């Protein structure tokens, strides 16, 4: 019966005997299809909405995302949602400030692009920190710049982290984990 099953799976099974005719070993040969890279990455992130355990700590985390670039905003939003966050996305600094000032919105984290026209990320963060405590909401800056003085300026204003663009999923997850953990909000 085993042989029949295996053969249906396009494999084979046989028993090799020793010189006395007793069964010595059994060999099972099965063929598997190697998954393509794309399939592998899709399965790795769950095919039915399930997410790996390491991302469940962000489930329900309310995040406000401000980025004036349509592409970046859509990609970053999707990334945060993939991590389980509840994301509100805006495209200007003014919309960002407006969203935060509404009492019913309580964003734990603000992901803020530094280089927005009219009112940039530095100004937005400065104003947020004027009205809110040093640690709430947590502010993660996004910048294409790798320069130290940008990072320093961000931290001086009271932002909690600086991420360099283009952002990767693991990078965002690591940064979120870090800032949440620091303020004792982490699990």
């Amino acid at each position, binding site marked *: 019966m085993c042989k029949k099953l295996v053969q249906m799976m396009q494999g084979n099974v046989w028993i090799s005997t020793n010189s006395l005719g007793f069964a010595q070993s059994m060999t099972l040969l099965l063929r598997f*299809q*190697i998954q*393509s*890279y*794309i*399939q592998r*990455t*899709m399965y790795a*992130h*769950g*095919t*039915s*909405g399930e997410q790996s355990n390491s991302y469940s700590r962000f489930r329900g985390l309310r995040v406000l995302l401000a980025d004036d*670039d*349509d*592409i*970046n905003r*859509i*990609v970053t939003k*999707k*990334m945060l949602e*993939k991590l389980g966050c509840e994301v509100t996305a805006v495209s200007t600094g003014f919309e960002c400030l407006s969203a935060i000032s509404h009492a019913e919105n309580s964003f734990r984290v603000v992901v803020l692009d530094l*280089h927005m026209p009219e009112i940039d990320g530095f100004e937005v963060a400065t104003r947020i920190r004027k009205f809110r405590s040093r640690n709430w909401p947590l502010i993660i800056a996004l910048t*294409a710049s790798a320069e130290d003085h940008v990072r320093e300026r961000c931290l001086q204003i009271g932002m909690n982290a600086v991420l360099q*663009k*283009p952002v*990767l*999923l693991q990078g965002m997850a690591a940064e979120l984990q870090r800032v949440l953990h620091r303020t004792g909000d982490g699990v």
Partner: protein
Amino acid sequence: MERNPLRRQLQMMRKSFFDQGYLDDQFVQLEELQDEANPNFVEEVVTLYYRDSSRLILSIEQALERKPFDFNKLDAYMHQFKGSSSSIGAKKVKAESTLFREYCKSGNKEGCMRCFQQLKKEYATLRKKLEAYFQLARQAGPMETACRPK
């Protein structure tokens, strides 16, 4: 080895984009974000990119014809363009954007103009390749999901 011939072709096409330097890891990032909730995420983002960035290209073109040359404005446009291009993993386009910004910073008008011509070429080439890729993906059909034994 992929059984479905169209899928195989699709894989080879995709691989060539990376091997020939048209796309970088950021494109893979987009693929990783695609899921059942957004099954066409990659194509949607790429389509949006070409739609949005075409306006930028036009603005840059107009700025290049204006006298006197406003290097700061050009640099600002290109900064934005580079950002979007980088988000979809457009490697060659991104490289040309970087070069263009260098020429802006050094006030090299000739360099800017030459570079921009090359950038437009790369931009158009990538567009054609990706359009063919997405079309083939649609023909190849949805991927079969293996039934995992419980």
